[in-house]
């Protein structure tokens, strides 16, 4: 048995290294995105890259602090942390400051915090805690409902702040629940709903019905031709068809106009390069113009001259694409895949259910951000304003992702201590 004498013992250095590399690359790209010849000093606190340097420094301190605290603390404090965050999410609705249409910021002096960013961490903790409690079985309907409630509460509060993007992130917990035994059908249904939604918007509901019907018949003849299967397939087909019709209603009556336009632009049904489609269009131009090797550090014209809006936050991937080309985007995507797969690998090696579930929470949230953010910049998804973890400018999000990841790293290191 080794003597434990340092907080760095038993750390998963791969995850730590990936974190550092990504934050470092992120900062370089923020510098490039905001760069202008008059303000070259990297410590200029009036510019985003100067501020980000402060955020990175403080994140490293937070990471160290997390590693210092006993791993047990996180299992114990799951409920209080969750309670605190939910309280903050309620308070922000009352006392928050509205930024760009979302009332999701606390402002203290020049310091702004977005509690929604920490909701993801708290929810991961609480879901892990609840599901790892003795005698709680995920198979029970009650357990499932309570889990969904834990997830839905912050999501709804964030939705009330009018921050749809951040609320959608909570959908990522479907992966967590799937891993813990939720029927694959739910995940499938989730994917199917998205597919049907998009396809219906592209085509007419009548065509959609024909397609559904054809697929249903094919599936029936491909599988066992029993009455039971026939009934099941028929029900699914009818539900899908009904959904097709309801989609039109939802789009016309439930969605807000800007959301509708975003969806239409993404689907290519609406061409509006100077309006809502502007972001996506410019983003694609910027990334595409990078070519194979990119234009070189600080030589990106599209991002530097602000053709791409929000280029240091939500559209930071454009700077990568323009200045570093396909090589750059390849590296970033491979880094993310490596990080995500590593987290799942580490989660799976845990003996503690709590740590495993929490790990899946981390992976799911990071994956959702990664997938939606990049899909948005390359025109595969509507513009949903969520940041690219570790890359995008922003203190709250960087802090939140650091906490999310390092608590997991700490829990993983703690696993070894349990073995003593």
């Amino acid at each position: 048995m080794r003597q434990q004498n340092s907080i760095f013992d038993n750390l998963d250095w791969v995850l730590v290294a990936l974190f550092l590399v990504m934050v470092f690359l992120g900062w370089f790209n923020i510098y490039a995105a905001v760069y202008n010849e008059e303000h070259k000093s990297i410590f200029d606190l009036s510019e985003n890259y100067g501020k980000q340097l402060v955020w990175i420094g403080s994140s490293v301190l937070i990471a160290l602090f997390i590693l210092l605290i006993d791993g047990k603390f996180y299992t114990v404090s799951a409920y209080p942390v969750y309670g605190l965050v939910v309280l903050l999410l309620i308070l922000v609705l009352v006392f928050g400051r509205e930024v760009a249409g979302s009332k999701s910021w606390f402002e203290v002096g020049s310091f702004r915090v977005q509690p929604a960013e920490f909701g993801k961490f708290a929810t991961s903790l609480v879901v892990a805690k609840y599901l790892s409690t003795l005698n709680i079985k995920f198979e029970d309907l009650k357990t499932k409902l309570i889990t969904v409630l834990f997830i839905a509460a912050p999501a709804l509060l964030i939705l009330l702040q009018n921050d749809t993007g951040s609320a959608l992130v909570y959908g990522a917990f479907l992966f967590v629940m799937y891993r813990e035994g939720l029927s694959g059908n739910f995940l499938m249904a989730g994917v199917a709903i998205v597919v049907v939604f998009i396809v219906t918007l592209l085509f007419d509901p009548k065509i959609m019905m024909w397609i559904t019907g054809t697929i249903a018949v094919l599936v029936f003849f491909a599988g066992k031709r029993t009455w039971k299967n026939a009934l099941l397939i028929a029900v699914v087909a009818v539900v899908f068809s009904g959904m097709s019709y309801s989609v039109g209603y939802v789009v016309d009556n439930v969605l807000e106009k800007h959301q509708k336009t975003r969806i239409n632009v993404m689907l290519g049904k609406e061409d509006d390069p100077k309006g809502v489609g502007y972001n996506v269009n410019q983003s694609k131009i910027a990334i595409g113009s990078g070519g194979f090797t990119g234009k070189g550090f600080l030589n990106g014209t599209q991002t530097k001259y602000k053709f791409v809006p929000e280029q240091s936050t939500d559209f930071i991937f454009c700077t990568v694409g323009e200045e570093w080309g396909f090589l750059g985007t390849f590296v970033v995507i491979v880094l993310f895949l490596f990080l995500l797969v590593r987290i799942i690998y580490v989660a799976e090696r845990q003996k503690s259910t709590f740590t495993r579930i929490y790990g899946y929470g981390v992976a799911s949230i990071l994956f959702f951000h990664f997938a939606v953010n990049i899909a948005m910049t390359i025109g595969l998804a509507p513009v949903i304003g969520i940041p690219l973890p570790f890359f995008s400018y922003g203190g709250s999000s960087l802090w939140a992702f650091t906490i999310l990841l390092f608590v997991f790293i700490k829990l993983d290191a703690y696993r070894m201590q349990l073995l003593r």
Partner: protein
Amino acid sequence: MDLRYSDRKLFVGGVIIFTGIIFLIRLFFLQVIDDTSKLSAENNVLRHMTEYPARGLVYDRKGKLLVYNEAYYDLMVIPKQVEKLDTLDFCTTLGITVDDFRQRMEKIKVYSKFKPSVFEKQLSSEFYALLQEKLYRYKGFFTQTRTLRKYPSRVAAHLLGYVGEVDDRMTKDNVYYKSGDYIGVSGIEKHYEEYLRGQKGDKVMMVDVKNVPKGSFKNGEYDKLPVSGLDLISTIDGELQAYAERLMQNKIGSVVAIEPSTGEILILATSPTYDPNLLVGRVRSANYSLLAKDEFKPLFNRALMAQYPPGSTFKLVNNLIAQQEKVVFPQTTYSCRMGYSAGGIHVGCHQHPSPLNLMQSVQHSCNAYYCNVYRNILDSKKSVREGYDVWRKHVLSFGFGKKFDTDLPSELRGLIPSGDYYDKIYGKSHWKSLTVVSLAIGQGELGTTPLQLANLVATLANRGYYYPPHLIKKIGNKKIEDKFTTKNYTTINKEYFQLVIDGMEQVVEAGTAARSKLKGIPYCGKTGTAQNPHGEDHSVFVCFAPKDNPKIALAVFVENSGKGGTYAAPIASLLIEKYLTDSLRRPFVEEFILNANLMPKPAIDKTVIKKETPSD
């Protein structure tokens, strides 16, 4: 440990890897395969800013400025950048109404909110100075320097021509011109456009999303500096041109003067004329339509475009051709009894001694003599047609019936009818020398321009050759076209000219232009009368001076003024005096000419048709 769902990690991992691969494929297409975004990126960020070169200046032969550029200012606006504008203050400064302001801004916004547009054109320097003080208050507005042509001596409008905006057709045909560019529309502005305009510069700037320039692209690697237009040195004598225009005031007609030893045009005046400054800038189109409507056609360049029968001046040509064809000799005499009569045709003549020899025929301009001589030319060959063709070939060698095709704006070719023309009218070999006898005295179907007559006397002064008359002697440091400095020989031998020149001297000494004799300057001239079926005949005088080593050859046309000796010859004599001595010793002649108002009454009595054949 719960291992029931452990294999689900594979599915979750699979979804992650699958997403990553989809992204990579998409990015590979977007970044490596598809080129369109590279183009869009360039369009986004690069702006080609045209830098206009200064248009070349035009000097006269003595270095006096005829055309220069004056700076003026366009007030430009970028609607997107207009902020917190005190509209009322702005409108008061510009002297426009608020409604007008709104209308203009609406129109400009339709064109573009981000690109600069002209709000107000061609502000004067004085107004610019005033505006400059206030401009800081009008965000989004700025001024752009441009230039306008300016004509300090206000002369030679027709030959200098004017500059105007290119039309759509021009921008389609020629890639150099973009809408809004200026181009020489007429005169030497048009003919020398390629030299005068210079080369536009191109500055490649990078702009940000708000169209604000952020610096030059790749340190100006792709920039092209504008090249100023070349200055032209004209052959015109500005002072002499101005004097000619002054003498021609209140008269319709034209004056052309050529330096025989070079073919350089010293004067190219037409009357009525106009101030070239009228066709500049904002006032151009309004003035142009006023000038176009004027009944005396001030826009019509009579010196190059009016085609008159040459009248008696053409006897000089027939004289030389007859000598060349050896149908007449210095001692040949013909008698004249108030005209020439043959085969029922009578060509009248005036009172003069008779009979006359060849030289005297020039001095007294005897119609009968030339009728005889001309018929001899045509009848000396196997057929009249053949004789006519020989005669016509000689005539064309003097530059008649064709364009000189140098740098003259819209000259006309005139008319020396071909043999086919008469064949067509009268039938092949159904016409005789008598049929076309009016050509003997420069009447009939002949059409010559004042320029061609001036060139004729220059040819006489040179004894047998001419340089194509032209307007520009130097383009920057370049020489003019070789064509301009190449001698064009007539088909007449040099030795035949002396007799004609001596005869022309006698015209001035003791002939039809005796009143315009100049003391100490022996010169040679010939009066003429161009028949005018619509009214009083046109007075013509051609001459060169001095007789030996001639410096100037002139043709003066004064419409509706009768015989050549009355007005045309005195005008020519004044110009000769001015050019050769730079002084005027006969103020009474000048006064007489300046006071003469020969503008015809608007309604010309068409019932009065001249039947009498004129001769001087």
